[in-house]
């Protein structure tokens, strides 16, 4: 019988890495496919062979929205989906430009910041959309 994991589960490990200042994702040893969000089994194949790897941190904005909210509440804020260069997509916030100036296709780089009261990954614009 395979050992799926020992000790804390994938989500707790992911958060522990973030607390150490490291953004880590998973990769299936058998298929080589990168995985986000953290899983127990490789999605689709079910293989219990997910390893932690450090992504390049580079990605491209795949979709974006500016949530409109009155200034006295939180004000407008950005929510984007970023495709990592390794393949997986994640929900995040893109910084470095106004929340409604984020464009699909922009090149962005990951940074760990406090979001929602805990360390999470946000992205900074490094290159305009081509």
């Amino acid at each position, binding site marked *: 019988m395979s050992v799926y994991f020992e000790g804390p589960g994938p989500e707790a490990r992911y958060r522990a890495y973030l607390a150490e200042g490291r953004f880590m994702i998973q990769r299936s040893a058998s298929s080589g496919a990168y995985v986000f969000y953290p899983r127990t089994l490789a999605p689709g194949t079910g293989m219990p062979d997910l390893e932690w790897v450090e992504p390049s941190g580079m990605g491209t904005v795949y979709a974006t929205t500016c*949530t*409109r909210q009155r200034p006295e509440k939180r004000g407008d804020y950005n929510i984007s989906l970023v495709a990592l260069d390794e393949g997986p997509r994640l929900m995040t916030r893109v910084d470095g430009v106004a929340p409604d100036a984020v464009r699909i296709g922009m090149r962005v780089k990951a940074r760990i910041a406090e979001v929602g009261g805990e360390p999470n990954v946000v992205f900074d614009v490094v290159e305009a959309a081509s």
Partner: protein
Amino acid sequence: MSLRGKAACVGLATAGTGEAPGRSAMELMAEAVGRALDDAGIDLGEVDGLFAATSFHSMAAMSLAEHLGIRPAFSDGSNIGGSSFMAQALMAAMALEAGLCNVAVIAYGSNQRTAGGFKSISEPMPFEAAYGPRNPITAYALATSRYMHEFGATRAQIAEVAVAARAWALLNPEAFMHEAGALSVEDVLGARAISDPLGKLDCCLVTDGGAAIVMVRADRAKDAARPPVYLLGAAVEHHHRMISAMPDLTVTAAAASGARAFAMAGYGPGDMHTAQLYDAFTINTLLFLEDLGFCGKGEAAGFIADGRIAPGGALKVNTNGGGLSCVHPGMYGLFVTIEALRQIRASLGVDEGFRQPGGWVEGARLSVAHGNGGVLSSQATCIWGAAETV
């Protein structure tokens, strides 16, 4: 063994659509059940199959059976969002055909509007919640942004969905926005921004409403009080729960559910006399027209131009006014189904109430009712037809 034509809807009703002050979600659901059974001419005591899902009850079928004082031999309360009721029509047909029950009722109720606004029992999405998504709007806004980027569609083109839906609502006295007047593209573009690129008029209504349908096997349906409407095809598919995990934000699982439902029915999109497509947001209608095969991928914005899906247009879409302008109590799928059924029954001579000329589609014998749940997540398609189409 195919389920094609093995079960039929013989009764339907809505209750308290729009605003129903002082009445609970359960009371609206139970009233709809009573009215649907009256419509079918079937006693409550005969109901032995019960299907329900709401945003107010974690175990809706159990709560409803208790409220009604019945002991169903088969029930299901699975919640896959607004498409639950299309999935339950398929399950009801399966249970009826297998002899597990003889009279199946599918029901829904919500008083979200008078109870304080949009109601959800969705848990926070674990790898998204920290960023503050206001689901479902955020997810549909993201999908719209991607659609516009990939296919060059403009907000003005997409606004035509809301304009057409309102035009249908103006023909339907039951629609919440019936008295609200026509919409222009400029109205939609000028509405308050909610989550770019979606403005307020790209988003569905927040209303109250209950709904129910009654289904029996085809042998019993022949002798029904009302012209039966047969379930010719049905299918369900889903591949994500979080928008960040959707494989391609411009392609929904409707491409799979629609193809299987049409294959079971033996009909194609071009055969449908009305198309009832779950329009929680303007982008939905575009994606479902494409994924169900009414037009090619990326073509819907052009396809709907010049009033093609509005009253008088070639394709009759969301003829009640849709979730955008008729009714949207949170999980709209049973109202989508009921509009598909009512168009068919009205064309067969059933008095479905007054609508302005064109509001009832002449010769409507086949309708697709397509449901959407979650954040473009669960997709469920039903093909309904009059007896002559079986």
